[in-house]
């Protein structure tokens, strides 16, 4: 046996350069992408982590970075910038407690559904417990600043943009996609028309909305005055200013939802739809039992992508209101940007890392409790 093996090894020819290249071709092909990723994503991430733990100052001939540990994060969470980042907390009343209880029930329900689902692992349980706890923390901060006499900070304002904005955009996008999937005349025209806002740069949309919404010289100013509200402006009240930002964001991003959902709807099994129609099923019934299960995985994924994108909102609040009135429309990205442009690079990086943390928590929670179950729904 041994002698045979030795003979066999001796007879196997050594691989040539070409064969070796073939064998490592995959790694070589990936290498440039890895190097680029390291240079442009990982390296800046590490540098910004150091910035977040430092204080930047100009010095003769350049600048200094003084290591201050978690000082920038402490300032945001418990220090002098808490009002700016987390907000000002008000006293909890019955409504606030009710909202907290509702959120807790919803999260417990999601957890219970996972536990009953069958494919339960220890890692899965621990991961979900962490994401549920952190999500509950975000809910508490949101309720403490919104449902009380408090004032929301940039964290809660960003969550508002994300939760309300993405929900509205999804519903509108789905509605438009369902309409455009019908055999109606000129539907290709409408498809192109609905898609146009997505191709406009966000800052362009922001300036357009600023002009449209100008209460003194805008095109709708005479109309608004004719309704007797000439002495009011959306820009001076917190909720109307946030609403205007949401309207602009929705106008731009609904087409993204629309186009992806339209593709998913058109890919649903036609035979099942036809069969259901022959059997006398109504539109709502077909949507609930055939269309929705077919598009649910795509819907979950498109919302996830949009969630990640929505956390980075900056152009609209920056151009429309400069973050005002007060802090009402300032998002976390704008918060970081304002800190950066006033030379507070450490605070800016710290806000950036908080944004990364919060968006990761929200997106993982959404993925675990919505996207994954939706895939099971399809299967």
């Amino acid at each position: 046996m041994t002698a045979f093996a030795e003979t066999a090894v001796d007879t196997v020819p050594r691989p040539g350069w070409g064969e070796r290249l073939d064998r490592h071709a995959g790694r070589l092909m990936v290498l440039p992408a890895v190097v680029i990723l390291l240079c442009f994503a990982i390296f800046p991430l590490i540098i910004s982590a150091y910035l977040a733990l430092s204080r930047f100052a100009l010095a003769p001939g350049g600048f200094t970075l003084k290591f201050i540990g978690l000082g920038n994060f402490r300032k945001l969470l418990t220090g002098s910038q808490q009002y700016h980042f987390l907000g000002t907390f008000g006293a909890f009343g019955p409504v606030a407690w009710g909202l907290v209880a509702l959120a807790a029930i919803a999260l417990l329900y999601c957890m219970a559904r996972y536990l009953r689902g069958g494919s339960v692992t220890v890692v899965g349980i621990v991961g979900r417990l962490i994401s549920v706890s952190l999500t509950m923390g975000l809910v508490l901060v949101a309720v403490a600043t919104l449902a009380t006499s408090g004032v929301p900070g940039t964290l809660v304002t960003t969550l508002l943009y994300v939760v309300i904005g993405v929900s509205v955009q999804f519903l509108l996008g789905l509605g438009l996609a369902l309409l455009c999937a019908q055999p109606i005349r000129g539907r290709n025209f409408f498809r192109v028309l609905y898609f146009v806002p997505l191709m406009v740069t966000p800052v362009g949309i922001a300036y357009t909305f600023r002009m449209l919404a100008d209460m003194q010289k805008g095109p709708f100013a005479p109309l608004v005055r004719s309704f007797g509200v000439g002495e009011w402006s959306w820009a001076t009240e917190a909720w109307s200013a946030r609403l205007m930002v949401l309207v602009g964001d929705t106008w731009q991003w609904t087409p993204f939802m629309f186009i992806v959902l339209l593709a998913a709807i058109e890919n649903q099994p036609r035979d099942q739809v036809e069969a259901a129609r022959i059997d006398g099923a109504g539109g709502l019934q077909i949507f609930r039992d055939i269309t929705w299960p077919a598009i649910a995985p795509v819907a979950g994924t498109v919302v996830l992508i949009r969630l990640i994108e929505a956390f980075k909102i900056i152009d609209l609040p920056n151009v429309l209101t400069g973050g005002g009135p007060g802090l009402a429309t300032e998002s976390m990205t704008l918060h970081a940007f304002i800190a950066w442009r006033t030379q507070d690079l450490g605070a800016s990086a710290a806000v950036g890392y908080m944004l990364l943390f919060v968006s990761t928590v929200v997106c993982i929670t959404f993925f675990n409790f919505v996207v994954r179950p939706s895939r099971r729904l399809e299967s």
Partner: protein
Amino acid sequence: MRHLLAGASALCLLGGMGIAQAAGEFDGVTVNVMTQTGAIQEPLQRRAPEFEALTGAKINVIAVPFSDLYQKILTDWASGTNSVDAAVFAPQWMVDYIAGGYLEDLTARVEADPAIEQDDVGAFFRDFSEKYAGSIYMITLDGDFHMMYYRKDLLEEAGLEVPRTWDEYLEVAKALHGKDMNGDGTPDFGSCIAKKRNAQSYWFVMDVVGSMTQSKGTSQGAFFNTADMTPLVDNEGFRKALDFLSESTKYGPPDELNLDVSDTRPLFASGRCALNLDWGDVGTISIDPVNSKVIGKWGAAIMPGSTEVVNWETGELEACTADNCPYAIDGVNHAPFAAFGGWGGGINAAADDKVKDAAFAYFSYMTQPAQSNQDVTVGGTGFNPYRTSQLSFSDLWKNAGMTEEEAAVYLGAINDSMNSPNMILDLRIPQNQKYQQVVLDEAISRFLAGEIDKEATVQAVANGWNELNDEIGVDEQLEIYRATIGAN
């Protein structure tokens, strides 16, 4: 060595051509100049081809929004990118740029360039806006003082006097608010003041506060106690200023909290405001025959003042007397605010020598009377008068469409402000942007939006400024603050 080189190159230019601009001198040289978008950008951009034709130097004007300008310049220079060869910016930022060693010392070049006519530049701009620690780092292109504008016709019609105090300002604003001021059938506004966050609004706060905290001359200071750097915020003067801002909002446009100066200026020129606070730009915009509906109907005056000033020991307001208001006019303490200090050009110390020469020649060209005298009379340039020869009525103003009567009040207001011994100098300590554009701006914006009350606003500004003092160093900041205002 750097001074010697600069001096030598300037002398070469001087000896060869008399002035810096000579045909073909800078052929092939490109100078990247950064400034703000809109006004200020306009004259720099418009005159760049003229300068290129004269000297061969290509001037590439890069414009960014005002709120980004400070950091864009700083990032370019501090990171060593050095794509910006020169910039036109606020003199108060000079202290940060010099701390990093990014600004070229221009003393020798200015002294060697007679075409600049330095003696004609107003003393305040020559000695404060251009200089730091005795050396010249900037070339003044614009003169900046806050002043008050009013509708002469409306005041006369209503039998009202030009406001001299902030209380009178509110009375006039209240009396005229809601009247149709331009004949378009819609009610107009008693007062227009830029109050937008993250814009250029935060300077207007100090107009009101300063008239109550500074009464004993420029060197007394309006921002901090010169003894220990305590912010002059937790006092009745600051609280009264907050009341003024809140009250004036009632007589302003409904979206005043979202209006920057670029929004209030056309409002005044279109005849929609009875009173307005701004820099000198409104005067030249108001005589624009194309866009102004207030030609012959407007006036200007030194910023209103106060008949009460803050006792720094007690924080209480006290009536003006000869002791506590030595510079009061008819019992009113005026403290005209040299807000911003006038746009000026500075040159990147790391630029190539030839580029520095071209940049200096360009700034010299822009500030020379032949160019400057035209630019300061045009509203859209953002440049206001800063040369002594520009501050009296002459053919310059007559040709621009200003009457002698208008010039008397407009230029008179600038002269009164510039010559006031109680003028407020803008904050010029390291990282002054954080004190004003972040802490002060944010707190006032939150107050006006109703997020926080008066006491919380006072505490937000006081705590924010104290925190910055502690982080940067109280003693260092105090020393620089005292030096910049000339405190004994």
